[in-house]
C-alpha cells in the first residue's frame, strides 16, 4: 500500500467543479462524503447490494445514469458530472417530482435508503416514463429498504411518473 501516491480527479458534483488529489483506491462515495462534504449520500453496506449510495453520473455533456457510488472509484469519475440527492431540487429549491411524491405518499420512514432510492427512481423514470408496478419493483430491486415494505415507494414512483409525464406534455399542449 502506498498511501502517498495520489491521482488528480476533477469532477462536477451538483453543479460545482471539484479538483482533488485522491488515493487511487478511494471509492466515489467516500470521495463525496469525506472530501466534498456530500454527506447526503450514504453507505449502507460493503457489497454493493443496498443501493443507499446511488447517485447519477455521466460524461461532462452526456446523459447521467444511476450508479452505486460504492462501486465506482473516484478516479473513474474524473471528468464526469455527478448529481446527488443534494443537487436534485431545482435552483429555487423546488423539489423534484420524485422527492415530492416520496413526501406526499409516505414513501420513507427512517430515510436512510431514501437518497439512493430517489436517485434510482429518477433514473428509472428517465428510461421508462410509464412503468408498470412490476417494472418499478424490478427497477428498484437494487435498492434495499427495511422500513416501508416498498409499497408506498412504488406508489410514489408511479405518482411521480404521472406528474413528470404531465409536465412533459405541457409545452406541446401550449403550442396547440
Amino acid at each position, binding site marked *: 500500500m502506498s498511501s502517498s501516491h495520489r491521482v488528480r480527479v476533477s469532477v462536477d458534483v451538483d453543479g460545482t467543479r471539484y479538483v482533488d488529489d485522491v488515493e487511487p483506491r478511494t471509492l466515489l462515495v467516500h470521495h463525496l462524503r469525506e472530501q466534498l462534504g456530500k454527506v447526503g449520500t*450514504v453507505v449502507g453496506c460493503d457489497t454493493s*447490494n443496498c443501493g443507499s449510495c446511488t447517485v447519477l453520473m455521466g460524461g461532462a455533456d452526456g446523459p447521467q445514469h444511476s450508479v452505486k457510488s460504492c462501486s465506482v472509484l473516484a478516479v473513474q469519475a474524473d471528468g464526469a458530472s455527478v448529481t446527488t440527492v443534494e443537487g*436534485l431540487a431545482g435552483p429555487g429549491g423546488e423539489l423534484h417530482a420524485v422527492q415530492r411524491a416520496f413526501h406526499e405518499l409516505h414513501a420513507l*420512514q427512517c*430515510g436512510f435508503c431514501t437518497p439512493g432510492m430517489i436517485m434510482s427512481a429518477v433514473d428509472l423514470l428517465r428510461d421508462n416514463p410509464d412503468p408498470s408496478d412490476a417494472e418499478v*419493483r424490478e427497477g428498484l*430491486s437494487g435498492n434495499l429498504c*427495511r422500513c416501508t*415494505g416498498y409499497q*408506498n415507494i412504488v406508489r410514489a414512483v408511479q405518482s411521480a411518473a404521472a406528474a413528470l409525464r404531465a409536465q412533459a406534455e405541457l409545452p406541446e399542449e401550449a403550442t396547440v
Partner: protein
Amino acid sequence: MTSTIEPQVGAARKRKEDARLITGRTRWTDNIALPGMLHLAILRSPHASARIASIDVSAAKRRPGVVDVFSGADVKDIQGSLPCAWPVTEDIVHPVRPPLADGFVRHHGEAVAVVVARDRASAVDALEDIEVEYDPLAPVLDLRAAYEDTGLVHPDKGTNRSYTWIFDSADAGTGSSVRDAPAEVTINRQYVQQRLIPAFMEPRSVVVDPGMGEYTIWSATQIPHILRVFYALLTGVPEHKIRVIAPDVGGGFGGKLQVTPEELIAFLAAQRVGKPVKYTETRSDTMLSAHHGRDQLQDITLTAKRDGTLTGIHVKLIANMGAYLGLVGPGVPILGAFMYNSIYKVPAYRFECVGVFTNTTITDAYRGAGRPEATYAIERAMDELAAELDMDPIELRRKNWINADEFPFTTVAGLVYDSGDYDAATDKALDLFGYAELRAEQERRRAAGDPVQLGLGVSTYTEMCGLAPSRILGALRYAAGGWESASVRVLPTGKVEVVTGTSPHGQGHVTAWSQIVADELGVAFEDVEVLHGDTRTSHKGLDTYGSRSLAVGGVALVEACRKVRDKARVVAAHMLECSPDDLEFTGGAFRVRGTPDAARTVADAAFAVFAAHDLPDGVEASLDADATFDPQTFSFPHGTHLCATEVDTQTGHVRIRSYVAVDDVGRVVNPLIVEGQVHGGVAQGIAQALHEEAVYDAGGTLLTGSFVEYTIPSAADLPTIVSDRTETPATSNPLGVKGVGEAGAIAATPAVVNAIVDALRPYGVHDVPMPCTPERVWRAVKRGGVA
C-alpha cells in the same frame, strides 16, 4: 381568535421529518466530523471459540497515521462488563462480557483489538499488522447439543444453561393445570424460529468527544437515555458529565436497543487519546456484532375437545442467547410467554423456557421480541388442530377467542385485556380477502391436480404493547421502569416546544406528537417543535421500543398538555374577568359558556404570562409543564391477517397472490404513519417466512455475513398488500391508543406459512421449516410430512 381548528389527531398529516431526509440534509452519526477527530477500526475474531495465546500490536502502532492500538489486555482493569438489564431469574448464569475480548473469544466477530488513526483507511490498513495467536477450541453451535451441555461455551460456569423460567397457570392461580386438561385431541408440534438479523439500513456508528472530562456521545441508538445511564455506571464518569445524542437514526427494529461493545470501545479510545473518535461499522461488522433475533426451538402441545374447544396449551422453549447475555436478551422469550394463549380462552397453560449459551453472536430484541415467536407457534398449531378436526381454521379460532362482550378479560397468562373485537376485524378481513371465492378456487385446483396449488393462511393475533407498567417490570426482574416523560413549554409568541423521552428512528414521532399537541392546546400543527434524542434537552426518558412510544410517551404528552391547559385556563379566566369554571375549551380557545365570542387562546395566555404584568395571585410567570406517565397495564392491539399463496409443487416456488391485513390498533393519530408501519412490519414478517436466515457453518463462521448472503427482500420480492383497520379504542389510556410498530411482523409470518402448508396438505405436508425456500418446499412435497 374564535376560528375553529380542524382536529389533527386522526388526520393523515404528511411528515415533518421528510424535508431533510428527501434532500440529503441529514444528521446521521457517520456524518459528524469534529476538529481533530480520529477514526477507529476493530479487529474481530475469526474463530467461534478460542483462547487468545498472544496479541502483538507493535507493528500496527508503528504505521503512519496510527495514534493508538489496544486490546482487551490493555484495558483489562477499566473496561468492565457489558450490561444485562433483564436477569430474568435470581440464579441466572450471567458471564462476564468485556467489550474487548479478554483471554478468550466466544463468537465469530467478537472484538479483539482496536486501532485509532487519523483516517478510516489508515485504521483499517493497520488491522493487518496486528498479530494474534489463537488456540482454537471446539465451538458449541447446535442449540440442542448446547442445551444438553455437550461442550461448554463458558467452561467456568459448568453449564450452557443460563436460566430456566416457568409459568404455570395452576401455580399462578390464573387457571388449572395442563396435566388435568381434557385431551380428546392432542396436537404436538416442534417449530424452529430461525435466527434473524434485524438489518436496519443505517449501520451503527458512534462518536465520542471527551471534551475536558465532559463527554458528548453521538450514537445510532434507539436508547440514548438508557445508554447514558449505563455509560455512567460502566465508566465511572458522573452521569451529569455525559451527554448522549441520538441524531437521525436509520432504523432499529430492536437492533439498536443495546449497549454495544463498540460504544464502550469508542469511549475507552477517546479517553486514552484525549481526542474525539468515531467508529462506523461496515455492514459486515453489523452482521457479526450487532445482536441477532429469534433463534428458538419451540415445542407446543395443544389439547382440545373434539368440538374444537381448547383445553390446554403447554410450551417448552429452548432460547439461544448466543455467547453472552444482551441488554434485554433473556427477557425476549419471557415477553412471548404471555402471548402463547393469544386471543383464546384457554383454561390451562404451562410455559417452560431455558435460555442457553452457544458460540454465536448474542440474540436480543428484534421487531416483536418474543411475541412473533409465540404467535407463530400458536397460530401454526391452531391450523394443525383445525386440520386434525377437519374444521375451517377460522371457525376453530372463532370458537375459542374472547368475544367482544367479554372484555375486560383476564387471560390464563394473567394479563387483563382491556378491549378488542376479534369478530369485527376478522369479518372485515374475510370480506376484503374474498375468502369463500378463494376456497372454491382451491377446491377446483385440487380437483384438477393443478401443479400450482392455492393455499389460504390466516393469523389472528394480539400483542402486549405499551411497555410497560413499572411494577410489572419490577416483578419480572427488569432493572428499569416502563414510564415515559414529556415536557411542554409554550413560548411567548404562542409557539410550542415539546420535549419527549421517546427516541424515534423512523416512526414519525415529530409529526404525530405535533398532531396531539395541536389538538390539546389549540395551536397549529406547524407551531409545534418536537425535541428528542438528546439527554441535554430531554434528560428523562426510556426511549423507543416495544410499540411503547405512543401508548406511553404519547399519553405523557397529553398529560403535560393538560397541565399547561389548566394553567392557561386560569390566566384566560383572569383576562376575561370570569371564573375558570365558566370557561370551556373548544375550537382551540377558552370560551365563556354562553358567550362564545369572549375567548382567549393558549397563545394569548402565553403572552400574558410572558409579560407578567397582570397575573392572578399565585400564578408563576411560566406556561410549561412536565408529566411522567407510568401505565397501569399493557395495551393490546390485535388483528386478522390473511394470505393466499400459489405454491408450485414442481419447483417449490411460492408466490404471494394476495395479502389482507386488518389491524385494530385502537385510536389512530395518523393513518398514513399507521399504514406505513403495517406495510413495513408485514414485509419483515414475510421475510422471516420466505427469505431470511442467519446461518453458521460447522466451525461457527457466520456464512450470512453480508447482504449477498443474508437476503432481505427487495421491492421485486414483495407483494402489494391490502391493509385496513377496525378501531376499538383502548380503555387503559386517555388517548385510546394501542401501538402498531410490531403488529405486522407478528401477524405475517404465520399467515404466510399457514398458507403454504394449506396449499400442500393434499400432499401430506403438515409443516415447512422457515424460511420456506423453494428447495424446502420442494422437499416437503417430495417427502410429504415435514421437510
